[in-house]
């Protein structure tokens, strides 16, 4: 019967801080990619997107506050996805 979020109600201000951080990161990613960085632009844009996603998962989606089981599941799926990317690129670069 117990509800996992019951013990910890996230205060509103935490969400406001996270939103401000996310908006700042969005602004920075637009700024950084506006320079002619070539291949670096791709890495920079993906880095900003990954940081933003991590914040959304941890705070908005409560992984930081919930039981660890959800975070463990997310990490397993992330590992599977990265493995698929690595295998695809190995296959693609050696054919």
């Amino acid at each position, binding site marked *: *019967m*117990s*509800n*996992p*979020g*019951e013990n910890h*109600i*996230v*205060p*509103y201000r935490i*969400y*406001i801080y*996270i*939103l401000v951080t*996310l*908006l700042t990161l*969005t602004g920075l*990613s*637009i700024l950084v*990619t506006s320079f002619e960085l070539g291949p670096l*632009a*791709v890495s920079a*844009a*993906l880095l*900003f*997107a990954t940081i*933003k*996603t991590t914040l*959304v*998962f941890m*705070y*908005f*989606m*409560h992984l930081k506050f*919930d*039981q660890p*089981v*959800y975070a463990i*599941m*997310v990490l397993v*799926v992330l590992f*599977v*996805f990265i493995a*698929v*990317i690595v295998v*695809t690129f190995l296959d*693609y670069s050696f054919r």
Partner: protein
Amino acid sequence: MSQTATHAEHFDATASKIGMWLFIFTELLLFGGLFIVYSVIRFSNQVAFHLAAEELSVSMGAVNTVLLLISSMTIAMSVSSVQFGNKKLTLFLISITILIGLVFLVNKYFEWSTKIEHGLYPGSSVLQGFGNGDTLFFGLYFFMTGLHALHIVAGISILAWVLKRVADDNIHAGHFVHLENGALYWHLVDVIWIFLFPLFYLIS
């Protein structure tokens, strides 16, 4: 009689949330697969992708990014407000989220219309004149942003159902996992856009 009724009331919020997360994983892998397709095709059509991406409006994409980030915050706040027992605020926050989702779709409509007016749509004669790279870029652009827009529609529908349940007092401080799951789905839609925006609009 009353015992049977109590038994029917039993509800496992953790299991419900794990189910939602499992569904979210299938969605992540669906879009993940599309991102791999995008990367491989981009790798072999770098110049065409560079030029084609400049056709997209960064400001339009940025506005939609800001909208989705704000809506993600409002729906996250509603999960707190329902636990504080503030029904009015919960209803308000869910409504705002739905409204922002609708504005996102309106923006998408205008964005797509402009592209189609310029002859940039899959199978158009303009694109065939540009070559394979541009055709692939706009094929992926319409497919991935279109699939994402469908997810926005699904998210709005789920949140509308959640809104009704909050209004009917079926979702309250003691039982709010449906709101939590609806919010999780909305955050997923936000996360997908966090990757779509740089890949299509920013990298050029």
